[in-house]
């Protein structure tokens, strides 16, 4: 593995892309081959779940390719668009009222762009406090001017929650690109890839483990598949995969394992929280046929990343004492 680390950056990139897209193409081909076989409904459902996860990995891989090919600025822009679409989906499914119009405009057209501008200009101090402090105070003020006291706290809290998860959480992923780590110049895209891979792996492993283990669910009313043991398996597999990928990160193998564990574990917890939210909104897959609008179900896909990115970002900063 140390030999891999000695390669030049462009050789590493080449190798990585061959491994990544080659592996994905192989898995997809096998999955397609198996999908031709006839089988029971239960297996079919499992296969569909697997295909959804596989698609998420493809999207993650393509995102990485774009971040790498087009540089930090374009990828920050890309993440801001994903943030926008996720927030749009979140707001669609929460019951906002007419009086919220101005606060929503503030969230979409001022807070969201500003947060990403702050990321792109590397004002990391402001980046950390802008949404939790200033926006937190500004939203209820604007909402109060909306002149509608009905369920005021509830509506304000929902908007703030959406901003925190979809904008603040997500913005930590492109912030990784701009971290100034020792002896790791211009390779921030690898950290983003590392994060996306371990989060996706943790989800897939957790899903597979819950099917095998059949443990008692930790919270039956929210998710029938989530148990502490399957969470642990998911995070552990993410850690092992993370350790195997240590050569693309600035870490040595053992810290890479810990980082993978932490990021994967918080990602699956994020997915768990989204399940609770979905249950509340009364939809199984956000944006499926049953929902209001036929959205694409993007929020589902990015929520684990929104939860894992801040934890991972601060772990990295803390580890290097930045």
């Amino acid at each position: 593995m140390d030999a891999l680390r000695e390669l030049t950056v462009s050789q590493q990139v080449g190798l990585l892309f061959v491994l990544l897209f080659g592996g994905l193409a192989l898995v997809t081909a096998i999955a397609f081959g198996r999908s031709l076989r006839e089988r029971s409904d239960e297996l079919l459902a499992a296969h569909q779940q697997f295909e959804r996860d596989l698609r998420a990995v493809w999207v993650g891989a393509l995102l990485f390719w774009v971040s790498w090919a087009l540089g930090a600025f374009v990828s920050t822009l890309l993440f801001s668009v994903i943030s926008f679409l996720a927030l749009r989906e979140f707001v669609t499914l929460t019951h906002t009222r007419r009086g919220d119009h101005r606060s929503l405009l503030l969230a979409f057209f001022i807070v969201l762009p500003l947060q990403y501008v702050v990321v792109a200009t590397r004002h990391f101090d402001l980046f950390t406090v802008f949404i939790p402090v200033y926006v937190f105070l500004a939203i209820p003020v604007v909402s109060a001017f909306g002149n509608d006291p009905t369920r005021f706290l509830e509506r304000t809290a929902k908007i703030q929650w959406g901003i925190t998860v979809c904008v603040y959480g997500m913005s930590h992923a492109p912030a990784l690109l701009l971290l100034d780590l020792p002896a790791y110049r211009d390779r921030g895209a690898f950290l983003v890839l590392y994060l996306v891979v371990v989060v996706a792996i943790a989800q897939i492993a957790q899903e597979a483990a819950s099917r095998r283990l059949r443990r008692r669910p930790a919270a039956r009313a929210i998710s029938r598949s989530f148990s502490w043991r399957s969470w642990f398996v998911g995070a552990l597999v993410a850690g092992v995969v993370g350790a195997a990928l240590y050569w693309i990160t600035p870490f040595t193998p053992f810290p890479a394992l810990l980082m993978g564990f932490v990021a994967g574990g918080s990602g699956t917890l994020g997915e768990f929280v989204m399940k609770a939210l979905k249950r509340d909104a009364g939809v199984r897959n956000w944006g499926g046929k049953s929902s209001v609008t036929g959205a694409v179900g993007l929020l589902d896909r990015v929520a684990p990343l929104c939860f894992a990115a801040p934890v991972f970002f601060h772990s990295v900063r803390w580890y290097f004492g930045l």
Partner: protein
Amino acid sequence: MKLPEAAGLLLACVARLITGAQGHWLGAPPKAEQRIYFANHQSHFDWVLIWAALPGDLRAITRPIAARDYWTSTPLKHWITRDIFNAVYVSRERSADEDPLEPLLEALRNGDSLVIFPEGTRSDRGEPAPFKSGLYHLAEAFPEVALIPAWIDNVQRVMPKGEVVPVPILCSVTFGAPLTLQPGEDKRVFLDRARAAVVALRPAH
């Protein structure tokens, strides 16, 4: 590509970015035949949403209806409705010797498709208002044109009455099965049937 075409494309892109503008074709596939789409009316945004939900090549042959006094009052409004949307202008004041439906009938004689909002005005209560009789007269004069009901969902949240900037919230347009005017059908019966066909497309929340 000419400027109005590019502006139209840009507008459709913005509408999709803000609302998703998902078109669900439940009753009839999108097809380049002559049609009258009729839908519920909750917001100024309704027309743009239907237009953005249509496939690109249907946009060129599908025309909205615009009030002449308002939409020709400034050069910009006139340009938007005439050059981008190719709107059919109608006058709101009724003069004694002129049929207010005449511009619509002429557009249909030319083979264009129309989008009309038969409630006549925007309603922000949940239920659509009773339909005005224009739809009936058009159906009577052009029995061969397909009448497609459509339900526009969620758009009142995007731009409530009195606001000018739209908030990004996902909307959908559901198109239903074509309706035909039965021979000898009473006007009120037909209009109620048409309204029921629109309401039936509302997704369960």
